[in-house]
């Protein structure tokens, strides 16, 4: 009897342990938006695409809520290619599938650092620019970046920055430094109404910047100082959150936040009191890209799809749908007046761009994770 009951319990534990591993979808920098997309024009059929070389199907692995369904439908209609879009919520999740081999995907959307990691691993195909004439629509400032200096493997899709969002009626004077988040005396008035991103690199990077260090420094002394700063900050925070930050800001639940430019822009639509700043110590810049997997037999079709996404009116539709900044200079004039106004606030000018830097992930990842686990469990 005793052993039988024990066995039953054991079985139960196993079954439940299996149930317990169901992950729920969480953080993605790509937020949904209610902005009305403009209809795709149906006129560009007289292009140089050799339709006889197109595959019947294309498989795209993309960030959630990042490619509007209408855009996919318009491509399918125009080129008679069936497009399947699957989504992911982190670069690592996507990379794990790609590295496992035979992922079945033709196109992926890696962020900056992940382009470098995947290219190094030999997973990305070299793009033939002759098949993507619309590349000339892309702002040269968004090309030739550290992770892919000659854009051999990647084409910019959307980009954004990380800074501070705040309610201008509650947070006065407007902050210009990370001090408002890291100096306990300055943060105290906004206790429990403040959030930091739920992202180890963003949060530790901001702390390092406030300390006057490189945001990518994995130096033990630098990280120890950042850890002390974050441990002191934590009791004053409401939460670490990267999901739908725009909702918290728009509703007033959070009045001061480390935030992505896209979320801030979306919050501004509902709450005109939201302000935005890239602190004087600087902030993060990131860019998501389109890349073609080496494993695909459909490179020409994939390039045709990328070229389609780079059309001005399609680029505008994508920008409208996501709220992020488009690298497409031909698309920018086509977005709604509302989005234009938001772009004026969140698009960094040349001087601000000097203060932005990329999060370079890779070899040093565990050092940041250790600090992050220490801070969060404290």
């Amino acid at each position, binding site marked *: 009897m*005793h052993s039988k*009951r*024990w066995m039953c*319990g*054991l079985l*139960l*534990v*196993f079954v*439940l*342990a*299996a*149930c*317990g591993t169901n*992950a*729920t979808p*969480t953080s993605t920098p790509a937020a949904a938006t209610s902005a009305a997309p403009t209809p795709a024009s149906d006129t560009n059929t007289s292009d140089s695409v050799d339709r006889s070389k197109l595959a019947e199907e294309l498989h795209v692995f993309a960030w959630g809520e990042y490619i509007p369904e209408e855009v996919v439908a318009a491509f399918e209609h125009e080129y008679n290619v069936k497009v399947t879009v699957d989504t992911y919520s*982190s670069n*690592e*999740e996507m*990379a*794990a599938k790609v*590295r496992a081999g035979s992922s079945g995907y033709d196109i992926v959307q890696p962020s900056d650092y992940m382009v470098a*990691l995947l290219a*190094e*691993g030999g997973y990305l195909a070299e793009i033939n620019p002759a098949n993507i004439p619309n590349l000339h629509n892309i702002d040269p400032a968004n090309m030739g970046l550290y992770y892919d200096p000659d854009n051999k493997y990647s084409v910019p899709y959307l980009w954004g920055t990380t800074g501070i969002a705040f309610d201008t009626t509650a947070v006065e004077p407007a902050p210009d430094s990370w001090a408002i988040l890291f100096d306990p005396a300055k943060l105290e008035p906004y206790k*429990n*109404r403040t959030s930091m991103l739920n*992202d*180890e690199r963003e949060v530790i990077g901001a702390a390092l910047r406030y300390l006057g260090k490189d945001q990518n420094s994995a130096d033990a002394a630098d990280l120890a100082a950042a850890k002390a700063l974050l441990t002191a900050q*934590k*009791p004053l*925070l*409401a*939460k*670490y959150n990267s999901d739908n930050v725009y909702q918290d800001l728009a*509703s*007033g*639940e959070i009045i001061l936040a480390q935030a992505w430019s896209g979320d801030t822009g979306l919050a501004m639509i509902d709450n005109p009191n939201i302000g935005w700043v890239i602190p004087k110590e600087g902030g993060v810049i990131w860019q998501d890209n389109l890349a073609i997997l080496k494993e695909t037999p459909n490179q020409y079709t994939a390039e045709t799809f990328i070229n389609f996404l780079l059309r001005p009116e399609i680029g505008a539709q994508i920008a409208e749908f996501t709220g992020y900044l488009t690298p497409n200079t031909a698309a920018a004039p086509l977005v709604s007046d509302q989005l234009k106004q938001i772009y004026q606030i969140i698009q960094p000018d040349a001087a601000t761009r000097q203060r932005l830097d990329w999060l370079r992930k*890779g*070899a040093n*990842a*565990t050092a*940041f*994770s*250790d600090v*992050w*686990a*220490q801070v*969060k*469990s*404290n």
Partner: protein
Amino acid sequence: MLRSRQEQRRAWWQASPAAIWLGLFFLAPLALIVLYSLQSRANDGTVLWTWTWANYAQLMRDSAFWRTLWLSIWIAVVVTAITLVISYPLAYFIATRPRRWRIVLLFGIMIPFWTNFLVRIYAWKVLLGNAGVINQLLEGLGMQPLNLINSRLAVILALIYGELPYMVLPLYAALERFDHTQMEAAYDLGANHWRAFRRVMLPQTMAGITAGAILVFIPTVGTFAVSDILGGTEGFMIGNLLDLHFRTTPNWPYGSAISMIFMLMLLGAIWLYFRVTKEVPDGENPG
């Protein structure tokens, strides 16, 4: 007892679907976790095949792991205890109603749980928020609003709510089987309410308590979504630590080592629990 070799063989044959299922979906993944836990992390985040105990050695010194583990166990014990205290009278009440009422009441317990789990957690967010339903009610009554959301309290409340049926149902099953005339017999023999409960009803419903406690404790101690959504900066549990090492860093070998140690500790705790709950009711002196 199986009489012949042929019958024995047939029994094995009949058990094979279960064996294959367990082997494929439980043992193989478990073996993979054991394998991973003995490797190290490559610079690009993949698994580097170098046999090493380093992950386990690091784990022993990792204060974040031990703090997180302690918090998870503490929350799970509190949730299990409170759920038991609420569920026992509730299950007793249901089990002692007329038959057709029992069905209705049990349905009443289960119907909310046909709604998606995440939707129900977000409902708690709406209830407990700074400008949430409860705080609006308090303000309406002229009282100070409370800071309920983003706290351990919020996590515990939502977990109790979420796990309640898993405690009520096994308790109900045990209490329904229980012959309630035995209580009357105990009273006739001079026992008071407490004594009759402790010596007659409790031992006979212990199987229900055990099943319910395990059904509640295991998912609670490993929870990840509830603490992530409602816990704010106070809800970093073992599930969230695993999430960090598997999805963010990523460092699968280290995450696998955490899984292994966590699993072994849970097995140990369950084993201990069975020892204790087995011995308490039986070990008592009659009379």
